């Protein structure tokens, strides 16, 4: 447990120094939100689509965060020395996923606020509880799957294009679930609160399933040949 925290703290400290999230990922995600609005060009349509658009932006941003998370590990072969320090590589997996989770949750909070400002989404009492729960479970799933596929491609040539190709299909259920549940939290007419909670349960199952798979699969994937 301690080494999970140690790895996560190390990643967050590096983020604090290099400010990649602040300097590149946040502006990119905001740009995606704005561009979607421009492309749709109809206020009622934007308001209806707002939940989906927020999660699309987070999904794209996840690719950047995960790529950065493994760039720091592979640029000077630090991953090799980290792995040789522990007999259970799954702790390194959970540590890196935890750091990614913290960053993505902060980003999700910011983007939801932007959605309120830019798109005019509204959240009230019950909706807020649901919204926070959705953000927690969905970003947990995003971090666990992202970190798992991040290590799949970490040592491959062409990893920048392989990461989205491999991970986005897997993340599709998460996108559907997070968007529907957020729509419910925003008080949409087409989906009610109980449905929103059902989707949140699916998101939790998803995070547990892929978290367990990642814990098992990380070791053979991380220990590369080059």
């Amino acid at each position, binding site marked *: 447990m*301690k*080494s999970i925290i*140690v*790895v996560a703290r*190390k990643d967050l*400290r*590096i983020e604090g*120094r*290099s400010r990649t999230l602040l300097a590149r990922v946040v502006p990119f995600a905001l740009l995606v939100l704005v561009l979607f609005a421009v492309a749709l060009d109809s206020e009622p349509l934007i308001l209806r689509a707002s939940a989906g658009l927020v999660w699309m932006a987070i999904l794209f941003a996840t690719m950047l965060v995960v790529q950065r998370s493994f760039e*720091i590990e592979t*640029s*000077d*072969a*630090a991953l*090799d*020395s*980290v*792995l*040789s*320090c*522990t*007999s259970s590589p799954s702790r390194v997996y959970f540590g890196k996923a935890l750091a990614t989770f913290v960053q993505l949750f902060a980003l999700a909070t910011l983007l939801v606020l932007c959605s309120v400002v830019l798109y005019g989404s509204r959240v009230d009492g019950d909706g807020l509880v649901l919204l926070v729960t959705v953000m927690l479970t969905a970003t947990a799933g995003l971090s666990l799957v992202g970190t798992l596929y991040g290590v799949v491609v970490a040592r491959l040539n062409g990893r920048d294009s392989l990461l989205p190709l491999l991970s986005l299909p897997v993340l599709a259920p998460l996108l559907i679930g997070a968007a529907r549940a957020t729509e419910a939290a925003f008080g949409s007419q087409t989906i009610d609160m109980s449905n929103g909670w059902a989707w949140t349960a699916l998101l939790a199952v998803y995070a547990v399933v892929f978290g367990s798979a990642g814990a098992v699969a990380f*070791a*053979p994937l991380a*220990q*590369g*040949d*080059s």
Partner: protein
Amino acid sequence: MSSTVADATAIHLDDAVVALGGFPALAGVTLEIGTGELVALRGANGSGKSTLLRLCAGLLPLTRGGATVLGVDLADHRDAARTLVGLLGHDNGLYADLTARENVRFIAEMVGAPNDDVESSLARLGIDGRVARTRAAALSAGQRRRTALASLVVRRARLWLLDEPHAGLDSAARQELDSILRDATRSGATVVYTTHDVESRPESTPRTITLTGGTVTSDVAGAGLGEGVAPRRTP
């Protein structure tokens, strides 16, 4: 895993072949290195020195032959070898955005070593004061090398595999490195390092194995360590 043979032998290679993309970087190497030995690997560029180290560190798959490191069979369990072995390759394994001290402390926290070890190993390698507080990206090549060595000291690996550790160090640092390596062997670790140097440290030459074209061409026992000079040629 803890048989008497495994205890006495750190590295045992039996006609080991490692192919890198169809090219036999190691073309059948047979050698044995005992626990606590200090061994220099010599050879021209492309003779297979680095490949040999990476094989022993469990980073490259064995293509043919047999290889055992610290009692671990590399053909079947090369992953298990990694936690026992400390490899310092061409890369230093440092995080560019962390300071030298933070890099070493991170490794110490991962293996559960006390903070005193971090300070003593940093001091030992001459990384103190301002240098310890400098981001790794801003360190000189030699300072980065020494930081990476400090991480190895903190890890207390049982087998040290060092690829060109002397490169980029000034002569004072080279001597300090040599004494660190000897200390490591005295405390039971085995040290294998590669070098270009033909003429190194005249008063105490370690056992020197020469690689040519991916095979062992000479194996000369150490001198000045209380052992007689006993050149042996491998069959």
